[in-house]
């Protein structure tokens, strides 16, 4: 078994992914079959957010990846220009 921080980080990631998965599954799949007067509905945002939040975070991720690529390319071009 891996030691120390490796285990903490690894199992932390597993826990985070399980939490997100169960919350999202309950939100998308289970809630429509539950009576709208039930108390559980107050723990979940309005249904439109079930699509908006993943979409927005996906776009944000793409933006960050693009910025990182731009930064790396600019740095390499400046390095080659200085070497000339």
């Amino acid at each position: 078994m891996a030691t120390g921080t490796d285990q903490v980080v690894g199992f932390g990631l597993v826990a985070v992914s399980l939490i997100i998965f169960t919350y999202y599954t309950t939100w998308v799949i289970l809630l429509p079959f539950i009576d709208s007067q039930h108390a559980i509905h107050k723990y979940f945002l309005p249904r439109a957010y079930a699509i908006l939040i993943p979409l927005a975070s996906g776009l944000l991720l793409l933006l960050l990846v693009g910025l990182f690529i731009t930064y790396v390319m600019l740095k390499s071009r400046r390095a080659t220009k200085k070497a000339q």
Partner: protein
Amino acid sequence: MLKLTQWLWGLGLLDSAWAALTMGALDLELSFPCQEVLWPLPAYLLVSAGCYALGIVGYSVATFHDCEDAVRELQSQILEAQADLTRNGLCF
């Protein structure tokens, strides 16, 4: 290219099935909860695939064995290589 085209075909089929069901092109009388579940289904599949990938990565990080012998051998080889190179004139 074969695997990519297979994936694209499969995804295209799923997407067209989902589009046909959501736009009511098949004239099925689906109950309201079924429609509510069907509408976010592609986003749900994407999110669950992402969660699965994250979970697998986390689990692999947590269960990767430390190789004590390999670490020691590698470090001794690094020292040996450093000594050899400095002897032959390379400055670190």
